């Protein structure tokens, strides 16, 4: 008897039996099946006629059933040994303090290598090219097609659907507006490369935005690796101007922000460099939105004359 449904490699849930214990309590078995176990020599063995009793915490093995199947038992000292019909030792159980016998059996969780059609629901789900169950349900419920049985919504998730259909989870703005003073949080991003070099021969610009005042600074770069030098200049400029210190820098964690010298500079100046998750520009929203505004303005300003 066991309470773990996942242990069963085969379960016939049409069987319903009542089991009466010594104290007159009754439990209902919700099925009967096979459980695969590991033998000590590494081979597999199978326990048949195992009852599935939901909510049962411990697993029980019936000596009566073992006797029925031709096994013999022998009590030796503080242990009980079970032999099969050829007198081979198959189990050894030590007696515990409550005078019950405890055995350790490791169960093989069944692995299925071939895709198995679990039921009619899943069959139709697969036949319909892994359509989602709500639509399948609707098709059958509203009788939109002929020959489709009634479909129940399953609890499991289809592996093939996950590999084929999984999309990025929707983004919720979890980063709050939390700067309470000037220069507490600085957002930064690099924009470019532009196809045309500027008059000064640059192809990128880097933006710095103070979260509290939303003031924007930009610097031009010929190459992305100039970000470090520019950040040092910017830091000196704004700290002198405002008298505050930069305490956090939020960037997209691009290579230009994560060089060793940049990290060393940040840590030695007490700047907490927060890089957002890779390929998640949504978390760098303030910088990215400002870039959009900027490039929009640039485009229309260059177009107007």
């Amino acid at each position, binding site marked *: 008897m066991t309470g773990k449904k996942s242990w069963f490699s085969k379960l016939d849930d049409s069987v319903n039996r009542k089991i009466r214990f010594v104290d007159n309590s009754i439990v209902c078995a919700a099925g009967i099946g096979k459980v695969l176990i590991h033998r000590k020599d590494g081979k597999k063995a199978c326990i048949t006629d195992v009852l599935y009793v939901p909510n049962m915490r411990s697993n029980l093995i019936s000596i009566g059933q073992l006797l029925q199947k031709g096994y013999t038992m022998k009590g030796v000292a503080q242990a009980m040994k079970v032999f099969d019909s050829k007198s081979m030792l198959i189990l050894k159980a030590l007696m515990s303090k409550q005078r019950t016998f405890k055995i350790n059996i490791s169960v093989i969780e069944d692995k299925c290598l071939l895709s198995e059609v679990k039921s009619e629901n899943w069959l139709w789900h697969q036949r319909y090219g892994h359509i989602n169950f709500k639509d399948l349900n609707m098709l059958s419920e509203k009788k939109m097609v002929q020959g489709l049985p009634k479909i129940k919504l399953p609890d499991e998730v289809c592996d093939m659907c996950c590999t084929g259909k999984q999309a990025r989870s929707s983004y919720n703005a979890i980063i709050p507006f939390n700067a309470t003073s000037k220069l507490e949080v600085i957002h930064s991003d690099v924009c470019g490369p*532009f196809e*045309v070099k500027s008059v000064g021969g640059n192809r990128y610009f880097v933006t710095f935005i103070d979260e509290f005042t*939303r003031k924007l600074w930009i610097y031009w770069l010929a190459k992305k690796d100039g970000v470090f030098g520019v950040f040092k200049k910017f830091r000196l400029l704004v700290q002198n101007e405002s008298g505050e210190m930069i305490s956090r820098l939020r960037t997209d964690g691009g290579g230009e922000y994560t060089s060793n010298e940049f990290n060393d500079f940040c840590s030695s100046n007490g700047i907490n460099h927060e890089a957002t998750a890779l390929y998640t520009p949504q978390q760098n929203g303030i910088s990215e939105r400002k870039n959009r505004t900027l490039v929009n303005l*640039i485009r229309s*300003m260059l177009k*107007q004359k």
Partner: protein
Amino acid sequence: MPLCLWGEAAASATYLINRSPTKKLQDKTPEETWCGVKPSVQHLKIFGSLCFRHVPDQLRRKLDDKFQVMIMVGYHSTGAYKLYDPNSKKIVFSKDVKFDETKCWNWKDKASNNFDSHFYLSDSETEDAGTEEQE
């Protein structure tokens, strides 16, 4: 305008964004929140508009033109304008500039850019930007 001026456009855009409303700040511009002074925008001119820069006495002879046609490409924090010389492709800063925001430089046909100094300098709509102060 030639696309190589995107850098100048970016600087002007920054200048303008800092003087524009932002969702998070209530009834204030970023510039005001940063430095505490309400910024003035009287000196703003259309980006890329034509302007006439006064040529300093040291740089010209007695009978030379007193102005030079330039293109406005930005602002300087001291109140000067950033000007682009389309002939020499250089950038200069000058405070003594007159603007004509209705005209623009013909980038495709450079020969057509002949501007009559008398006509523009007597135009009442042009303002003397040099007398205005920034911030």
